[in-house]
């Protein structure tokens, strides 16, 4: 469990934009995960996706770390941004792009590629 928590923390802190979701960007298994992913795509965010479905322990440890009970969860450089509703609203208002520019730099879209990370 300690090891799993450490791996989750490494993704949260190490990736520019981490999306913990049900499924993968290629095969999304939940409507809310899809809404979050699409909002991030519209903002041009360099998404690193983590599928939480392989083991219920991932979700337990993630929520214990973040204090956020539901999936998906989006982090920008280690900071919890929110779930699908928050990310969607921030994207629509332009605040998500501002946040990405401010935190990752104005060129954050350059060379972006969606990738996945495994924690288990």
């Amino acid at each position, binding site marked *: 469990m300690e090891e799993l928590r450490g791996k989750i923390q490494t993704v949260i802190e190490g990736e520019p934009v981490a999306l913990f979701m049900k499924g993968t960007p290629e095969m999304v298994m*939940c*409507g*809310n995960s899809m809404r979050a992913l699409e909002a991030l795509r519209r903002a041009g965010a360099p998404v690193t996706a983590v599928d939480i479905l392989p083991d219920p322990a991932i979700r337990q440890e993630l929520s214990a770390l973040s*204090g*956020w*009970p*539901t999936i998906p969860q989006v982090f920008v450089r280690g900071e*919890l*941004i*929110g*779930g*699908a*509703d*928050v990310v969607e*609203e*921030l994207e629509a208002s332009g605040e998500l792009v501002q946040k990405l520019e401010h935190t990752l730099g104005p060129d954050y879209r350059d060379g972006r590629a969606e990738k996945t990370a495994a924690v288990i």
Partner: protein
Amino acid sequence: MSRLEELLRNAFPEATELNVVDRTGTGDHFHVTVKSARFEELSLLEQHRLVNQALAEPLADGTIHELRITTRGS
């Protein structure tokens, strides 16, 4: 009053709008809307955190399979 609505009314007695919609009619996919002056000074993240806290029990015991939240200041 549904259990979710009761939990939200207890957590936000000052709310000027409070709405729980069972999106699929199956009692597990909900859209809740809360309008409260308390939200005015809070970030969207914190607003949603308060709603999640009010619904911690049904979120933890699996009653809520999917939750959508809309919050507004007054």
